[in-house]
């Protein structure tokens, strides 16, 4: 039992940054914008979060700075793609490039310094309950934020008027504009929200997952987050499921190795990626269902005509 709980906790830590970044990107894509710069925003969040936590000694301030860092960095993308109507794919890729470079430059003096880890929750009486205690009441704060975020996004998108408006913009920006909805203002807010989430995910990396700063420490997690959004066919709860499935495969292959299963480690390492492809295929096979959920104007620039 102990081992099962531990494995679940490990999976949760591995899945949380993917979940948060993907949840942000989901909102961005629901508004009809494709931001491929998640990796760049994430790494900026990681360096900002670590730096602030290290300099002030407070991981909480670190977490806030991580969020702010991602949000500010995403403004650059928003200005380019929304105000100047540049190509979203290319702009997103350059955002990643810029983020990886800038974070490396900013983080030079943080290398080799142990950081502050956000403490795990510890509620007297509850955390010590066998099995469920640790799972439900003993994890790090960002885990709870990620669950709350999922609930909030699901509620916002499908239960509020603003969420409905946001989705309608993603489906057709021209008709939304014709109805007098300020398309660009909505998209600006969505992009900045996505940036804040990516920053938070980065902060989780450098303040919880591995409390330290090293270059490229996001190691491709931003891309996985992007994959999860499509994987989930733009539905918040499926993002949660996808993040945990991916985390389970990821951790599972390490356990398989430690267990001594005689399969080349390269094959095991490629399992999470192959699994993503397979699930993508399974999910998108039903053309009508995907079409229904895919924001129709995804990736297309919008310039209001006056």
């Amino acid at each position, binding site marked *: 039992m102990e*081992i099962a709980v*531990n*494995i679940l906790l*490990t999976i949760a830590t*591995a899945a949380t940054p993917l979940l948060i970044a993907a949840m942000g990107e989901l909102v961005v894509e629901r508004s009809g914008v494709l931001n491929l710069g998640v990796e760049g925003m994430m790494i900026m969040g990681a360096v900002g979060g670590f730096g602030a936590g290290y300099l002030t000694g407070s991981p909480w301030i670190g977490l806030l700075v991580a969020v702010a860092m991602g949000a500010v960095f995403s403004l650059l993308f928003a200005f380019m793609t929304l105000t100047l109507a540049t190509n979203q794919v290319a702009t997103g890729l350059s955002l990643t490039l810029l983020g990886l470079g800038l974070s*490396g430059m900013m*983080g*030079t003096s943080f*290398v*080799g*310094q*142990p950081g502050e*880890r956000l403490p795990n929750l510890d509620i007297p009486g509850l955390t010590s309950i066998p099995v469920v205690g640790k799972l439900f009441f003993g994890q790090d704060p960002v885990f709870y934020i990620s669950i709350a975020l999922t609930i909030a996004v699901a509620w916002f998108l499908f239960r509020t008027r603003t969420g409905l408006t946001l989705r309608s913009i993603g489906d057709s920006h021209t008709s939304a504009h014709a109805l007098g909805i300020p398309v660009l203002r909505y998209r600006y807010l969505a992009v900045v929200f996505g940036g804040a989430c990516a920053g938070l995910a980065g902060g989780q*990396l450098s303040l919880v*997952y*591995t*409390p*330290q700063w*090293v*270059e*490229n*420490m996001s*190691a491709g*997690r931003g891309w996985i987050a992007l994959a999860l959004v499509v994987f989930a066919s733009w539905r918040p709860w499926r993002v949660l499921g996808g993040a945990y499935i991916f985390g389970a495969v*990821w*951790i599972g292959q*390490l*356990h398989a*190795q*430690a*267990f*001594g299963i*005689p399969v*080349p*480690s*390269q094959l095991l*390492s490629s399992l999470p990626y192959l699994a993503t492809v397979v699930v993508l295929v399974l999910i998108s096979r039903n053309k009508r269902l995907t079409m229904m959920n895919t924001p129709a104007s995804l990736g297309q620039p919008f310039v209001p005509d006056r």
Partner: protein
Amino acid sequence: MKRLLIALMTTTAALSVAASAEAADKLKACWVYTGPIGDFGYSYQHDQGRLAVEKALGDKVETAFLENVSEGPDADRAFERLAREGCNMIFGTSFGFMDPELKAAKKFPDVKFEHATGYKSADNMGLYNARFYEGRYVLGQIAAKESKTGVAGYIVSFPIPEVVMGINSFMLGAQSINPDFKAKIVWVNSWFDPGKEADAAKALFDQGADIIVQHTDSTAALQVAEERKLHGFGQSSDMIKFAPNAQLTSLTDEWGPYYVSRVQAALDGTWKPDNVWLGIKDGAVKLAPFTNMPDDVKAMAEATAKKISEGWNPFTGPVAKQDGTEWLKDGEVADDGTLLGMNFYVKGVDDKLPQ
């Protein structure tokens, strides 16, 4: 525009003249690193060596480096650039640079080249490497003493001889204390991915290991050990700051003394290409202070390290291969050639080497 170009051209020309005039009375020593110097691991330690040269030899030397250099044409270009920019001595710090460095050595016979961890040399290209396996034997002994479950978790990067040698030496050390000692091995297929290393450490702990050994560069695994109140060993640099209660010791690379001596030799005009394999006795392989262990274990570790520094080789027979066949007869010592190309496990390793 044209005028600006000419102005720029003359400035650079003037600068390069100034640079080469300066280089005439100074020795310029240069390094090529495979990773970023911000990795706090392999490349970081080599750069610490470069800084040690600057510190020790002051204005007699000038140094430069290129970091994050990929194998292949980028490496070709890196060596050519440094040779052309007036470096008198170039250190290539990774196995993947062997062939590019050799090409450059043939092309620039007046430049002194040194290559780490490979096996090809030339009249102006020497080889150097460190016997990290010496330290790993000591780690094995400590692990066997300190482990309650009798199982260590071993996080490894890639199956190259250097890594295989390390696993074997660790196991021999551990078995010298506890013949039934086991190690669970996880390949993460990366030198550097903190998240994955942390996950691997958790998986290994969950499966019953209570000590972590790593042949990867980040501090993540040790931080996990700290969190779980278990133990582990650092790698490349002293990681005690990251795990004050978990680190038993750290197997560190100290390239400084070697680099200083080689650059000094070049300054004195006594530099000759050599093929050295430095160990504990040369100060290139260093064990960080033994902490978080009882005094008797500490004394044992110190005694073993001393024995090795006095010339004893951990690969001394009798040693059997994984399948039980004899590798080294009683008292026989492994030759360096076999070690450098090692692609088999010794008895007791619970893993299958990719062939």
